[in-house]
């Protein structure tokens, strides 16, 4: 049973928010909440989605939603789940929406603890590859070569010198019941992963790639296309981790041109050919690893 756009909940649970035009993160939150329904309690740490969703008195969530501390998304989810369970409520989802910084840097400890306790929560990380709402600072999920305000592109150092951390495999290494990567460029895949997560007991983690026109430097209308292109050129991949097994959902046979993807974004505009060569090499190395370690369908 897969869900598609026709049987998606018609209610809007994230509406009238103040995100930039063409925001990928708000699209991920909107669709995830439509899949999960109104009986979901959303937790939002400091980050874009809490900054744009709660501008008092403008409150843009139609379901229960609360802002947590930056580091405490997962621990607040734990508390909400335990509290509602203690009150005898059972038909709800405790869902968190944290950015890449709130997940891979600041919220990692709380998330790791929640997975260790196997609390019955859904944790969704919308990855826009930097701290966007504070003015585009590097996070540990910023890819190699990207220009941010803390990794500027100059004569000697051209943007971020570190590679993107593999948050999906870090989470999977906990032995979590369900983890997945997704992209807003492949919406059906994302919707079905959220739906699948809502039916599994225990901690669920979904890492969704969500381009940011402001931080990435592309046109607002290109958000969905760029997200799709990231998957097609092999710099992002769609996979799942379930029953101690990695599954690759989309085995890309012929990658599209990496430089075409990079050149569309002003954060990569300074890159030289040797940098693109390095990015291509790391992609190929990663895919060799994926093809041996992951089960392909």
């Amino acid at each position, binding site marked *: 049973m897969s869900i598609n*756009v*026709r049987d*998606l909940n*018609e*209610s*809007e*649970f*994230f*509406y*009238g*928010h*103040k*995100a930039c*035009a*063409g*925001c*990928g993160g*708000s*699209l991920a939150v*909107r*669709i995830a909440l439509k899949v999960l329904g*109104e009986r979901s309690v959303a937790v939002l740490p400091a980050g874009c989605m809490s900054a744009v969703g709660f501008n*008092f*008195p*403008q*409150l*843009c*969530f*139609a*379901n*229960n*939603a609360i802002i947590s501390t930056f580091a405490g998304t997962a621990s607040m989810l734990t508390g909400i789940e335990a509290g509602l369970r203690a009150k005898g409520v059972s038909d709800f989802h405790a869902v968190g929406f944290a950015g890449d910084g709130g997940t891979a840097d600041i919220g990692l400890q709380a998330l790791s603890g929640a997975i260790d306790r196997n609390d019955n929560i859904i944790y969704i990380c919308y990855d826009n590859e930097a701290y966007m709402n504070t003015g585009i600072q590097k996070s540990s999920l910023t890819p190699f070569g990207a220009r941010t305000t803390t990794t500027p592109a100059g004569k000697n150092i051209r943007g971020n010198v570190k590679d993107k951390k593999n948050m999906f495999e870090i989470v999977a290494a906990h032995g979590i019941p369900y983890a997945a990567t997704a992209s*807003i460029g492949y*919406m059906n895949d994302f919707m079905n992963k959220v739906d699948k997560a809502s039916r599994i007991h225990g901690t669920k983690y979904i890492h969704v790639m969500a381009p940011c*026109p402001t931080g990435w430097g592309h*046109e*607002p*209308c*290109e*958000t*969905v*296309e760029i997200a799709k292109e990231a998957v097609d050129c092999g710099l992002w991949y769609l996979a799942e981790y379930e029953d101690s097994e990695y599954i690759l959902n989309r085995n890309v046979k012929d990658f599209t041109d990496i430089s075409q993807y990079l050149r569309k974004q002003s954060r990569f505009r300074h890159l030289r050919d040797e940098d693109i060569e390095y990015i291509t090499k790391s992609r190929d190395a990663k895919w060799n690893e994926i093809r041996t370690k992951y089960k392909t369908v």
Partner: protein
Amino acid sequence: MKPYLRDHTPVLLSEIPDAPSYEAGFLVSKNAGWRSTRPVIDTEKCTGCLMCYLHCPEGVIYKAGGKVAVDYDFCKGCGICVRICRAGAIETEAER
């Protein structure tokens, strides 16, 4: 059901609850002023595939009689719907 625009914005302290919580889906301001161009749907060409509805970050595109319509109060004019439409049924029009 979706959050809707209220006709009154709370201004007095007495209108704001004491508890650190507030009514969900409480909208007091539009986003229409953010827009320099607006998407216009050609209902003749629209096939009702709902791809624009699915990919709108604002959720302002809604189903209407087998086709779609736009809530211009909250559309920011990003143009994702124009790009995603395979039938070419959405045109961009400049705001005056």
